[in-house]
C-alpha cells in the first residue's frame, strides 16, 4: 500500500498515471497496478469533485443531525447506523464519542425536504431516542479546501534573484 500515492490522489484525483509515475519515481505500470489493487481492496472508494454549489443556481440545503439512539444488543450501533445510512439523501454517518451517538449529514433541495426526512424517516425509527437538526448556513472550508479565499493571484515579482 502506497500512502504517498494515496495522499496525492486524495488531493487531486485528476492526476494521470503518467504524472503519478513521475512524482513517485515509479513506472507507469507499477502505479496503474497499485491503483487497481487499492480500488479492488476498497481502499480507494471513489473519485469525487469538490463543488462549491453556492456559486451555482442549484437549490440545495444541508444539515448536520445529532442523533441519540439505543444500541441493539449484540450489534451495538452498527445495525441502527445501517438503517440510517442506507437512505440516499444521507451523505455521511459517523459514530461519535461524547454527548450523542451518531452524526448524520444530509442533503436536500429545500429545508422542507430535510424536515420531512427527519420527521417521517429518522425520528420514528424505533431505536432513535432524539434528534437535533442543525442547518448549514455557509461552508467556509470543505475537504481541506477554503471555499471563499478571495483572490489567489500570484503577487510575486515576475523575476527575482
Amino acid at each position: 500500500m502506497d500512502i504517498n500515492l494515496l495522499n496525492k490522489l486524495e488531493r487531486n484525483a485528476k492526476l494521470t498515471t503518467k504524472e503519478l509515475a513521475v512524482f513517485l519515481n515509479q513506472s507507469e505500470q507499477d502505479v496503474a497496478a497499485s491503483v487497481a489493487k487499492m480500488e479492488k481492496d476498497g481502499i480507494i472508494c471513489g473519485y469525487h469533485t469538490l463543488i462549491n454549489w453556492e456559486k451555482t443556481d442549484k437549490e440545495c440545503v444541508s444539515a448536520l443531525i445529532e442523533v441519540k439512539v439505543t444500541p441493539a444488543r449484540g450489534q451495538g450501533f452498527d445495525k441502527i447506523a445501517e438503517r440510517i445510512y442506507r437512505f440516499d439523501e444521507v451523505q455521511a454517518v459517523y459514530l461519535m464519542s461524547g454527548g450523542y451517538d451518531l452524526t448524520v449529514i444530509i442533503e436536500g433541495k429545500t429545508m422542507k425536504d430535510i424536515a420531512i426526512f427527519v420527521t417521517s424517516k429518522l425520528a420514528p425509527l424505533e431505536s432513535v431516542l432524539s434528534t437535533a437538526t442543525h442547518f448549514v448556513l455557509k461552508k467556509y472550508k470543505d475537504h481541506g479546501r477554503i471555499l471563499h479565499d478571495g483572490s489567489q493571484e500570484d503577487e510575486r515579482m515576475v523575476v527575482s534573484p
Partner: protein
Amino acid sequence: MSSFVTDKVKNMPASGIRKFFDVAAEMKDIISLGVGEPDFFTPWNVREEAIYSLERRRTAYTSNAGHPALREAICEYMRTRFQLKYSAKEEIIVTVGVSEAIDIALRAVINPGDEVLIIEPCYVSYRACVILAGGVPVTVPTDEENNFRVQAEDIRSRITPRTKAIMLCYPNNPTGAIMERDDLEKICTVLRDHEDILVISDEVYAELTYTDENKHISIATMPGMYERTLVLNGFSKAFAMTGWRLGYACGPAELIAGMVKIHQYVIMCAPTTAQIAGIEALKNGLEGVQKMRDEYNDRRRLMVESFREIGISCFEPLGAFYLFPSIKKTGLTSEDFCTRMLMEKRLAVVPGTAFGECGEGFIRCSYAYSVEELKEAVQRIKDFVLHSTDFHGGIV
C-alpha cells in the same frame, strides 16, 4: 551638475536579473519561471502568531543581536537539524534576511584589497557585497560536468596570501547543486592548509534537499571547520517567509560580535514582528516544511522529466527549487535565448549569466510554481526549441 555617487557604485553593474525584470515587468500575459521565492504562503500558524503579537502591541525594538527567545530557538534548531552547537548569547545574530548577513559579515572581515573566493554561478549579491566592503572578488567557476560542485583543485589554484574568505552556497541558487560529504571533505583538505581563510556558508536552502541520501550537510560539521565557519541561514525559503526579511548568522563569537557592531549602527535590529513569527516557525513549522518539500520534489521530478523529453540536457538538481538546463545546443547565448523566450513565447526564465560568466549556455528555471503553470511553461519552451528553425537547426 556634479555627481554625488562614488566611482565604486557607478562602476558596479546592476544585477543581471534586475535588467531582465524591468523588461518582463512591463509585459502583460506572460508566465514566469523567474522567481527565487516559494509560491506557498507563509504557514497560517506563523502569520497568526504575528497578528497576535501586533494585537498585544509587541512593536518595540528587540536587542541588537535579536530577540533572545528567537536566538534560543535558532540554537535549538541548528543543534537538532544540523548537529551544530552555538551559544545563543554569543554566537548567533538575527539579521534582515540572509542578504544583510552577507553584507555585514563581509564588512566585518575584509580589509582593503583582501580577496574573497566566490563559487560561481551564484546568488547575485556576493560579488557586489565583496566590492562594497573594499574586497576583491575572485571567481571559482563550476561546471555541469561536475554537477556544479566546486572542485578542490579550482579552489587551491586561486588561493593567494591575500585570500581572506571563501563563500559557499549549497544547496545552490541558481543550479540546484548540492555538496555531498566526500565533496566537502575534498575542499576541506585544501582549506586545512590555509587556516586563516574564513568560510562563509550560505545555507538558506538547507531544508530543501530531496533524497534521503542527500540530506544537507553543513561544512561547519566537517572536522576542523567549525571554528572558522560562519553559517548563514534564514526563514525565506524553508518557511516561505521571503517578505518578512528574516535571517541569521552563526559562528565564532568574535566575528559575531563584530557583525553585531555594524548591525547595531545600520539596522538596530531585525523587524520585531518578523522575529516573533520566526519563533513560531521554528517551534511549530517543521511539518509545514516537510509538506512544501514533498510538493517541490514532485515538481522537480516533473520538470527534469519534461526537459529530458524535449531533448534539453539538464543535470538532476538535488536541492533548492531551481533547474539549470543547458541551452547550448540551440547555439543561442543565454541572454538571447531568454530574451526570445520572453518576446516570442511570453515566458520569463533567467539567463545563467546573471549568476556569473560560467552560467553562459544555461538558464535558470524555478519550479516554485503550480504543476499547471510548470506544464504550460514547458510547453512554451518545447514550442520554441522544436519549432524555431532559424537557429542551429533546432535542438533535436
